[in-house]
């Protein structure tokens, strides 16, 4: 289990108290609105609020007043990012000496175009040139990303709703992600690190899928444990396919194509 120490009393701003909405402007730019609910957070009223939008080496930082007198962004444009860009946010409350009083990181904004409440998105999509590959998973960043080849017309729609893509690709995505978490990283405790940790979020999702009070496999690298882990991943993928009626959807899509 990964343990993290917090010697300085830095507070965590819960994701549920941060609201960031991302949308495309008329000029095909990306803009956002943000607000933070400080309820329950005991913070110095003089603390400066910063909001950082980041994506790989891109970083744009906005000073948003103080805790006492916040000036939350409204229609702030993220210069240099295209309307489809994947971007995350970080909120910092900083004292006069530059010390962090509170942080909320890895915040996924809501896309107003695809409003879906305050649900945590387990898998982000990104669109780029993948040569002759149609898709691949990037699990080396701070959240899983499904990379899709932007050279394929309508790839966004295909990945979202084309039955053959959904039925053939998504079970494999679930398998690859769980393999990375449970086998490669040997991460088997969903309570570690809470909501900012994608591995724990995926384990919780997997436990919900598999249901029936089934436990996660134990941590370890021995052969019997490895076999137990692989079996557990198979069970989750089966449960994913059952709950999404993968075979039926695929068969139906074939029939539609034949007719």
């Amino acid at each position, binding site marked *: 289990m990964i343990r993290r120490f917090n010697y300085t009393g830095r507070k965590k701003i819960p994701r549920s108290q941060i609201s960031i909405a991302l949308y495309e402007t008329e000029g095909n730019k990306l803009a956002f609105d943000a607000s933070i609910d400080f309820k329950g957070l005991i913070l110095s009223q003089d603390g400066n609020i910063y909001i950082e939008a980041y994506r*790989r*080496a891109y970083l744009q930082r906005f000073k948003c007043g103080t805790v006492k007198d916040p000036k939350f962004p409204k229609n702030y444009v993220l210069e240099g990012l*295209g309307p489809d860009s994947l971007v995350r946010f970080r909120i910092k409350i900083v004292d006069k000496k530059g010390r962090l009083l509170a942080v909320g990181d890895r915040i996924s904004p809501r896309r107003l175009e695809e409003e879906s409440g305050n649900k945590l998105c387990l898998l982000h999509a990104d669109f780029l040139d993948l040569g002759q590959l149609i898709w691949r998973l990037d699990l080396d960043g701070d959240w899983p990303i499904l990379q899709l080849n932007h050279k394929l017309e309508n790839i966004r729609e295909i990945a979202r709703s084309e039955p053959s893509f959904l039925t053939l690709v998504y079970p494999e995505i679930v398998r690859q992600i769980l393999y990375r978490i449970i086998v490669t990283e040997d991460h088997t405790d969903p309570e570690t690190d809470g909501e900012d940790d994608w591995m724990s979020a995926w384990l919780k999702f997997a436990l919900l899928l598999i249901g029936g009070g089934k436990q996660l496999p134990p941590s370890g690298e021995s052969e019997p444990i490895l076999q137990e882990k692989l079996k557990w991943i198979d069970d989750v993928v089966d449960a994913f396919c059952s709950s999404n009626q993968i075979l039926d959807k695929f068969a139906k899509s074939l029939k539609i194509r034949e007719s």
Partner: protein
Amino acid sequence: MGTPLHLLNEKGIAKFKEYLQELREGSTREPPYELLTDPWYSSKMPGGIEVEKIIFQSKKEAAKYFFEKLHFFPHSQIDRNVGLWSWFSLYYFEQVCPKNNIGRRIPGHNSRYILDLDYRRYYRHLLIGPYYVYRLHGWPVSILLYGPLHKTSKYYEELLSRQEFITNKGVIEAANKLYFDNAGGKQKRGSSTIKGPGALLRFIDVIKQLDLTYDLYSMTGEEIVALLPPEFDEWRKDV
């Protein structure tokens, strides 16, 4: 008289890759410069920009040149433009892959010449890396951009490959203050070893720790240098 800026298309990039492979297999053929303007392999970049075959004395000089040439374009047209950066690599091939002392060119990984959009290899491109450093920081950061285009230092590789470092002006300025010798125009004597007390890898570890406590983005390089523990005194003494 310059050359109109072009983009290599997929066929042009494929030919360029073939050439790189030929070189690895021992070919001594000269670079296929004809691809640069052949409409079958490339197309003009809109905007009417021309570039010149300058011999850059350092990555610094190249970074400034690319920045000045490209600053009219929106970043979205530059940052992921594989055709543009591959064209630049071929145009300046003499500098990104010069002949060695026995007259052979030995290219490195393709990502040094052909922009790879995978962020783990993005900055390996020998031209976009320096350009990006200049654009992000607004000045040619010496510790990252000294030396010729085809040579990358450990500082360049270790700092550019860490996104949270390269985007942080204060951290990069601190590294520059600690490890770059302004008088000599290169890294400080003894700093080529990146392990050991106060050396680059320790700097990276300590900065990661400080980042949990301080908002390093709001600090200057000088303020960050002052936060470092005594093991950095050797490097800090003439800052």
